[in-house]
Structure formats: C-alpha cells, structure tokens
C-alpha cells in the first residue's frame, strides 16, 4: 500500500543546535498514528516541517507518493493536512456556522451568503460526529472540547486526508475525551488518517494503531501499538532499561511519609465569586495536600483564593507564617506562597525574555542591591537551578520560548523554588510534559517537601495524586466534601470518593 505521508532522513538545526537528525515518519491512509518522545525529542519540529511552518535542512517528504512542495501552513491545508492545535485558530465571537464555513460559504444567486444552507450544512457536518449544538450560537459560548471538535469538523469538511492533533486532550475532561475519541474513530472509518500527539500513554492504547518513537532528534522505532507494552514504550523513549524504570516506580512523588511539621495555614469555609462555595483545608510543613475532583469542582478556584487572586466572600485563611490577609499575588508571595499556574503560556512564561529573566522574575525585589539587580548573585542562582533541575538550554540567555514544554515548566518551577517559599501551590505541574521530565519534576518537588516545603497539589491524573499526596481533599461543585489520608488511598478509593459524593449530590 502506498504511504499517505512518507518523511525520511529529515535533518533540521536551529542556530547550530541540532533538533532533528535522521528523523522519519510513515503514515498509512486511514490509520491513527501516534508520535511519542520526551520533550525536546523533536516531535513538534518534525510536525512543523510536515505542515510547512519550518523548512527542513535535508531529507525527503512525500505525500501520496509525490514529493511535497508544501512550504507554508496554508499550502499544507490545501494538500489535505489539517492541524488542530491546543490553542484554537478559530473566532470565538462568531457563530459556529461562520467558523465552520469560513472562506467556503455557500452563496445565493445574488452573491450574498446563503445562511439557510450554511446552517444546515454545518449541522450536518457536526452531527456526523455526534455533536448536537446550536450552530447559530457564538462559538466562544461552548466549552474548549466542543470548540476543538468544531475545529476538527471544519478540517474534515475541507477534505483533509490527515488530521494532526497536538495534545488535543490536555484541556478536556473524561467525558469530552470520550467524545473526541468517538470522532477519531469516525474519521478512521471514513479513511482519514490521524496523527496523534499525546503525553498520556493510556490514550494511545485506546485509539492508536501504530506509534513512532522519537529520541534525541531521531526516530528510534515504529511499532504496532497492540504489540507493545507501556513499559516497553517508556524504556524505548528514554533509552533506558525497562527493569530499572519499574524499580523506581511510575511517578516520582511517592516517598516516605514523614511526620508533618507545624501548620502553615488554615483555610476555613472560604468562598469566592468564582464558584467556590465552602472549602476548608489545612497545610502543614513537609506535606503534600492534594485537591481531588472533576473539572469545575473548584480545584483551581481554591488555588486562586489561596494566592490572593480572587477576593474571599466569606470564610478566612489563617496564615501561620506571617499573619494578616492576602489580597494580591504580590502579598501572597511576600507571605511565602508560590503558585505554579496550569496555563504555562498565558500566565507563566514571558516569551521574549531569557531563561534567566524568567526564572528570577518573582525574586527581583530580593535581588536588589543599591537600586540595581545584583547580576552576580542572579547569575549564580540561575546557574545553580539550571544544573540542579537539569534544565536543557543552550545557555541562560536563551529565550524561554525556544525551550520545550517540560524545560519551560522547570524554569517556572525554579522561579518559585528560588524564593524559598513555605507553601507552593502546584496546578497541574506535569501537564503537557513528557514522561521523563515529569518524573524529574515530581522528584524535585518531593525533595523540597522532605526539607519542609508544604505543597498544595492539583492534578487531573489520579495516579499522580494518589502516589504523591499525603492527604487528598475531595472537592465537588465548590465544596470540600471529604478528606482521604495516605497511606491507604488507591485510585479506586479516590474515584469512589468523588463519584459517591457526586451521586449523593445529584440525589439531594
């Protein structure tokens, strides 16, 4: 059978740093193909070469057996390659129909847009994927998941032969992921190939046919997914021995539970206008308290309240390190609280700035010496964190936007660790981060917790919570409903706690 996509011997370097050397990718028509690899392995570079964002230095790209001439994203689209990015390239303020039909609107005889046909056609396209929504409503009024599906629907309506999904599920909840998978299977049935990039290995086993494994800019393997094991994939990705990995455990958060120290803060019945109704939690030195619950249960909202981003409507937070109220992030920081946000791009990095400047952003006031930034101390500190956190960068002056997701996350983690905080709130610290970096980030956190740091951990991955947290506060609809204590928590018991109370809530 002829390959749909055939990339071979691809080479690419940026400013002398090799990003790809001898990478390859073969996709058959109508298959669901995954690419896995650590951050920095070259996945996104390879895809960006395919979609015309970057130009390759060497190598060959064939589409349907013909040498590809794609050199811009627009040409890729015309060649039948559609990309669904995490950040959607749609117009949220316009209707669903307008978004799906944009550029290809049906016309009446007078040359105006034939809305009746447009709405009908949009409805038909969406219903094929089992999405039943009001196509006249603003796209932005729907959830990210629906928006993502609309983007996919649009791509398919433009006769895409290959749909690339880059971390498509990272902002979806379980139910939405199921819908997305349904769409992927539907695409496959229609003979459309899907290139699927995800850090969640479990997902690959659910929907993918084959997987390409990349490491250090090279394609190191291509497997039929049904013939692999999760451990096998990870070991191939990391280039390490499977047994060694198994011995170390799947997450790096687990550790000896030490006696928790003095209390750091106590939040009692706090509520905010962002949907937090009544949450109570305490945190002590040297412990990790997890916040469990479904999307929208109030996990991030709790973090925002603790960090002074939302004003409390009722209840109070008693800070035992420094007294007083926290009304702004700046006050929270001077009270010894750090907050690693879940939205790295929008709320974390300053893209134009260097690794150094990003890392010391929160620390600046403390680096002040006679009116200026103490560059010597700053450089030493940054160098120390680059080494101790294993941040892969060509130097501390490299702009942070050039780093891979996992390394950006480490820089942001260093931003807070450098402050030597008492409390660190981590909102999805390992989302969008590959398995290797994830393990490293978790180990770093554990190391600091052992030294007395108190951590509030939010994670959608039950495995991370169950293995990492000393206690888990279960949230639902803005209320803290129960508390589980380790040792003794299992994924099943956590899910049961969330589900059980959920049912009760539904009944009551």
């Amino acid at each position, binding site marked *: 059978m002829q390959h749909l996509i055939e990339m071979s011997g691809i080479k690419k370097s940026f400013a002398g740093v090799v990003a790809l050397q001898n990478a390859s990718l073969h996709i058959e028509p109508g298959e669901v193909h995954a690419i896995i690899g650590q951050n920095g392995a070259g996945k996104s570079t390879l895809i960006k070469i395919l979609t015309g964002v970057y130009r390759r230095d060497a190598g060959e790209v064939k589409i349907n057996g013909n040498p590809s001439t794609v050199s811009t994203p627009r040409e890729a689209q015309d060649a039948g390659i559609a990309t669904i990015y995490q950040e959607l390239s749609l117009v949220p303020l316009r209707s669903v129909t307008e978004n799906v039909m944009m550029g290809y609107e049906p016309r009446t005889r007078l040359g105006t847009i034939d809305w009746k046909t447009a709405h009908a056609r949009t409805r038909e396209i969406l219903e094929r994927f089992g999405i039943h929504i009001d196509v006249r409503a603003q796209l932005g009024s729907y959830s990210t998941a629906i928006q993502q599906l609309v983007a996919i629907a649009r791509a398919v309506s433009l006769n895409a032969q290959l749909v690339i999904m880059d971390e498509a599920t990272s902002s979806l909840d379980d139910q939405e992921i199921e819908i997305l998978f349904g769409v992927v299977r539907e695409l496959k049935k229609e003979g459309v190939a899907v290139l699927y990039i995800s850090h969640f290995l479990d997902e690959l086993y659910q929907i993918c046919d084959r997987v390409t494994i990349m490491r250090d800019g090279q394609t190191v393997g291509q497997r039929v997914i049904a013939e692999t094991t999760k451990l096998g994939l990870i070991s191939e990705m990391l280039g390490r021995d499977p047994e060694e990995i198994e011995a170390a455990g799947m997450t790096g958060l687990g550790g000896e539970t030490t006696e928790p120290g003095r209390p750091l803060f106590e939040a009692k019945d706090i509520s905010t206008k962002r949907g937090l109704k009544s949450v109570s939690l305490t945190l002590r030195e040297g412990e990790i308290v997890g916040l469990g619950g479904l999307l929208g249960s109030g996990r991030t909202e709790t973090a925002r309240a603790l960090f002074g981003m939302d004003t409390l409507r009722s209840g109070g937070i008693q800070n035992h390190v420094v007294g007083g109220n926290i009304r702004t*992030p700046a006050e929270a920081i001077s009270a010894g609280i750090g907050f690693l946000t879940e939205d790295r791009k929008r709320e974390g990095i300053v893209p*134009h700035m260097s690794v150094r400047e990003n890392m010391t*952003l929160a620390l600046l006031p403390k680096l002040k010496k006679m009116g200026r930034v103490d560059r010597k101390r700053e450089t030493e500190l940054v160098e120390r964190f680059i080494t101790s956190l294993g941040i*892969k960068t060509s130097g501390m002056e*490299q702009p942070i936007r050039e780093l891979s997701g996992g390394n950006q996350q480490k820089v942001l983690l260093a931003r807070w660790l450098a402050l030597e905080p008492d409390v660190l709130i981590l909102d999805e610290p390992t989302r969008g981060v590959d398995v290797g970096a994830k393990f490293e980030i978790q180990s770093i956190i554990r190391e600091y917790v052992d030294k007395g740091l108190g951590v509030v951990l939010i994670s959608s991955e039950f495995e991370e919570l169950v293995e990492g947290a000393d206690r888990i506060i279960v949230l639902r609809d803005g209320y803290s409903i129960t508390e589980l204590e380790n040792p003794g928590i299992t994924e099943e018991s956590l899910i049961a706690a969330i589900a059980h109370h959920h049912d009760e809530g539904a009944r009551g």
Partner: protein
Amino acid sequence: MTMQNKPVTSASEPTAFKFEWSMISRHGGVVALIAILLFNILITPNFLHPQTLFVNISQVATIAIVAVGMTLVIATGGIDLSVGAIMALSGALAPLIFTSPFAEANPELGLALSIVVPILVALACGVFNGALVSLLNVQPIVATLIFFISGRGIALVLTNGNLQTFTNPAFSYLGTGKILGFPFQGYLVLIIAACVWWVMAFTVFGRQLLAVGGNERAAELSGVPVKRVKIGAYVICAGLSGLAGLIVVAINSASDAARIGNLMELDAIAAAVVGGTLLQGGRAPIFGAILGAVIIQLVKYTLLANGVADEVALIAKAGIIVLAVYVQQARKE
C-alpha cells in the same frame, strides 16, 4: 542534545541559518542611516558643513527625548498620544513663569521655577494617563487621547492663544547653548538615553517593565506591581515630553501653544518603531529609538535641503514606518 551552562552575552537568534537576512533586519536602522548619509554627502550641498550637523542635532533632540519616553510606554504594551500636547502645555507655562513680575524680581528662582514647574505639571499629566490606563483599565490610545485633545487646549487658554516672545538668555541656553562647540541639547539627549538605558538594563523597575509588556498576567502572578510599573512608564514619558517642550521654546525664544510639539506623537512613535520597539510590548531598545529619531530627522532634512515640499516629506516618513514594521514582522519568524 547537550547541556551547556555557559552564559551567552548577546540574545541568541534562532534563525542563524538565514544569516544575511538576519543581519540586515537586525541592523536595518544602521544600514538605513549609512545609506542616507552617503546619499546626502553625494547630493546635498554643504552637507558636511559643521553648521548642518548643529542644525540637525538641535532639531533631532526633541524627537529623540520624546521617543525615549515613548519607547518605555510602548514596551508596556501601551501608547501615548498626548506627548505633543504635553510639550505645548509645558512650553506655554515656562514663559508665563519667567516673564511674571515675581520672576523678574527673583531671576534665579524664577528661572528654576520656569523649568521645574512645567516639568512637574507634565509629570502630573503622566500620572493621570497612567492611572486611567492601569487603575481604570482604559485603552491606552483612548486614555491618552484625552490630553491629546485637551492639553493643547489648556495651553492655548493659558496664553490666550497669543504668541509669547521673550529675551531670556539663561532660559534660552536650553535650546541654544553650546559645550565644546556642540549644542547643549545633544548632550542632554545622550545623558537621558544613557540613564534610561541603565534603568532598563540594570534595575528591578526596568526588568519588571519589560515583563509587564511581555506577559502582563505572568508578571502579575509573579508579584510584579503591574499598575505601579505602568504608571511609572507614562510618568517618565510625560516628564520627558515636558522637557522637550521647554527645549522647543528655548530654541525659538518664542512660545506658540498651537505649534509646539505638533504631530510629535507620530514622530516619536515612528522613531521608536524604526528603532526596533515591538508595538505589542516587551522590548525597549533605547538607543534604537535615538537611532530612529536620527533617521527620521535626516530624511526630513534631506528632502527639505533638496527642495522637496513638506507634504512629500510626510509621505516619505510614512514609507519609513511601513518599512520598519515590515522588517520587524520578517524578523519574528
């Protein structure tokens, strides 16, 4: 990939393989400057005469001073349309003060007041601009439009719309004084640029300003006092505009509120953009702004000296801005 921890002093560009293009785009301003200089040396009569240099320095000074302030405001992701009007306001105030009976009686104090008071008023305008933008979240272009319209009006009301002429050698030194043969305001520009550059490169405020422009949310969550930093940028910009207004008045020994700083906002924005400031914020090349101001001044001078009408000079200026923005866009890739 290997891990290197050695510090690199210059910002690394990801597009080194496009070596030639990146050279041109990064040093576009310098290339343009050299081209204009060569053109003038060949074509314009008497271009190499020292007098030409002095004229250009004294004329570029005001654009350059305002452009430095504008660069800071743009670096926060804002824009300041009120600079020309603030120049008019401070330029109108100064003669009113040193020609007053009180100042005639106390010449030294009068002179000091005629410099300090207008600049204080300008700074107050900056506080107003900054407060609207950062505390009330008014769009910068709208917030500064208020003084753009009313500032000149206030200046005209203060002077009854009259042209104020005066003879005050001490005050005129600001615009006509010379040190080692070079105009005083030329030195002033260099001192101001060096100070602001130092602030941006080495102080906490400078770093925070760039962070606010680069990603305001991230800066706020990192404890950066975003509102204060933004107000600071508008205040500095307004203060520098006030100073520029004084210089214009000093050069002419006359103050015409209707004309001081007219269209200065456009020159300053153009100088900043030509100098490499990104309109979306996050970057503040101070010496780039000076270079931009010099280029704009020289283009104006070139056309004027070769008998091209003023209106055509405006079109040339527009052309430069388009070119600068185009180069900037290309560089982003």
